[in-house]
C-alpha cells in the first residue's frame, strides 16, 4: 500500500454500505476490466442480494485508438443477461477523466437499451474531462496528474491500491 492512499478493503466496505438500500434489487453489476471486474465481483458478494454480474472490455470503444492503437490483451466482454430494459450499475476501480465510462456506456447500448445506468467507483480522483459523475463512491482522492492509481488483487481475492508513475499511452 502506497502511503497516503486509503485501504482498498476498507474503501470497498464503505462503497458497499453506500450502495445497500440505494441499488435496485434486480440491478445487474457490470464491471469494467480489469479492476472494475474485481470490484463488481466483490460488491455482488458483499451485498448478497443475488445481483447478476457482467464484464466489459472497452478496448473497441476507446477514444484514443487513433493515436495509441489497439490495446493488447483485449478480453471478451461477457454480459450473460438481457441488457434491454435492465437496470445496470457500471462498476470501475478508479474514476478519472470519465473516458472509460463513456466507452462503457456506448458499448452497453450495442447490447440493448437499458432502463437505467448507474455508476459505482471505488476511487474518484477528480480530473474529469467529460460530464460523468458516479452514483456511488468509495473514497475521493486528490492525486498528482503524473500518477496512476492502480488496483491489484491478491491470490486470496484481497484488493490493494497503489500509486504508480503514469505510463504514456
Amino acid at each position, binding site marked *: 500500500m502506497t502511503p497516503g492512499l486509503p485501504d482498498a478493503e476498507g474503501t470497498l466496505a464503505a462503497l458497499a454500505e453506500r450502495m445497500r438500500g440505494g441499488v435496485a434489487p434486480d440491478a445487474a453489476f457490470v464491471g469494467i476490466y480489469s479492476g472494475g471486474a474485481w470490484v463488481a465481483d466483490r460488491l455482488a458478494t458483499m451485498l448478497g442480494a443475488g445481483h447478476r454480474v457482467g464484464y466489459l*472490455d472497452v*478496448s*473497441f*470503444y476507446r477514444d484514443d*485508438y*487513433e*493515436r*495509441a*492503437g*489497439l490495446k*493488447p*490483451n*483485449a*478480453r*471478451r*466482454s*461477457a454480459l450473460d443477461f438481457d441488457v434491454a430494459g435492465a437496470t445496470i450499475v457500471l462498476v470501475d476501480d478508479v474514476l478519472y477523466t470519465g473516458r472509460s465510462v463513456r466507452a462503457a456506456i*456506448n458499448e452497453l447500448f*450495442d*447490447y*440493448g437499451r437499458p432502463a437505467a445506468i448507474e455508476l459505482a467507483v471505488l476511487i474518484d480522483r477528480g480530473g474529469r474531462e467529460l460530464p460523468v459523475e458516479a452514483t456511488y463512491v468509495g473514497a475521493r482522492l486528490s492525486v498528482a496528474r503524473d500518477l496512476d492509481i492502480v488496483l491489484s488483487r491478491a491470490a486470496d481475492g484481497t484488493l490493494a491500491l497503489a500509486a504508480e508513475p503514469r505510463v504514456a499511452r
Partner: protein
Amino acid sequence: MTGLARNPQLDANGGLRHLLTLEGLPAAVITRILDTAVPFAAIGEREVKKVPLLRGKAVFNLFFENSTRTRTTFEIAAKRLSADVINLNIGASSTSKGETVLDTIDNLTAMDADIFVVRHSESGAPHLIAAHLNATGRSHVHVVNAGDGRHQHPTQGLLDLFTIRHYKKDFRDLSVAIVGDVLHSRVARSLVSGLATLGTPDIRVVAPRTLVPTRVEATGVRVFNEMHKGVAGCDVVVMLRLQNERMKGALLPSTGEYFKEYGLTPEKLVLAKPDAIVMHPGPMNRGVEIDSAVADGERSVILPQVTFGIAVRMAVMSIIAGNPGPRE
C-alpha cells in the same frame, strides 16, 4: 533501413504495419492477433455486430484475382469495424503488372485509402505495394495480403491457427496433417509457417509426389505420399482444395483416382485421433478431396473456420490501422 526493406510488414518498433506473410512473423505478433480475435469473435454473437474502431477509415478491397468468399469476409470484417468499404474487382485483364498496379495504388491513395486488401495472381504483389507505400512516405496506408500467387494467404493461415487453437488449445503437442495440392497452395505455405513459429512439433504434408514442393522437408515438415500413414494418429487434418486445372497439367491421373488415394473418407479419418478435427479452406470439391460424410460430419470445423475468419480479419485490420507509423 535494409531490415525494413526486407520485412516491410513490421515497423521499427516491431509493430505490425502491413500483413504480407506469416513467414518470419514473430510468434508474439501472431499470438497477439489470435488473442485479439477472441473478443472480436464475441462481437459476432451480439445483436449489434459492430464496433466503432475504424469509423472514418476507408478499406479498399483490391481483387486482381476473383475470390468471392475471401472478399466477402474482408468486407464483413471491415464493416463490423465501421469502416467504409470499396470493392474493386480489377480482374486478370490488366496487361502490364508492376507499373499498372502501383499507378492504381497511387490513384486510390489520392482518394484517401487507409487499408488495401490485395488479392493478386502474382506472388509478391502485396509486398511490392507495401514497399512502394513505405518508400513514398505513405506508411500510414496499410496493406493486407489476401492471397498472392502461390506465395502466401496469411489471413487464411491465421484463421486456420485460430481454429486449431480454439479446439486444441496448445500447439506444442499437436500433429497436424495438411493433405492435397501443397505444391500450388498458398494456404498450405502460410499455415506451415505459422504452425512452425508457434512450436507445433509434428507438421505433415500428405500428397502425391507430383504435388509436393521440392525441398519442402527443409522447412521442418514430414512428407507422406500415402494417406493412411500421413493421417495416422494426427490431431488436425487440413484438406486442401484440388484445383481442377491441375488435372490438365498431367500432374494427376483423374479426380476419381485422386479421391481413391487422397480423398478424406470416414474410413481414412478413423486412422486419425478419435477427437481429430477436419478443416478445409474452401471452396470444397465434394467427392474429389473430401467425402460429404466427412465434410458435414461432427468432426468437421469447416463452417466455424469461416466464422472465425471474420474475427481474425477484424483483429488484423484493427491492429495495423492502429499502428499509424510516422507521417511524413
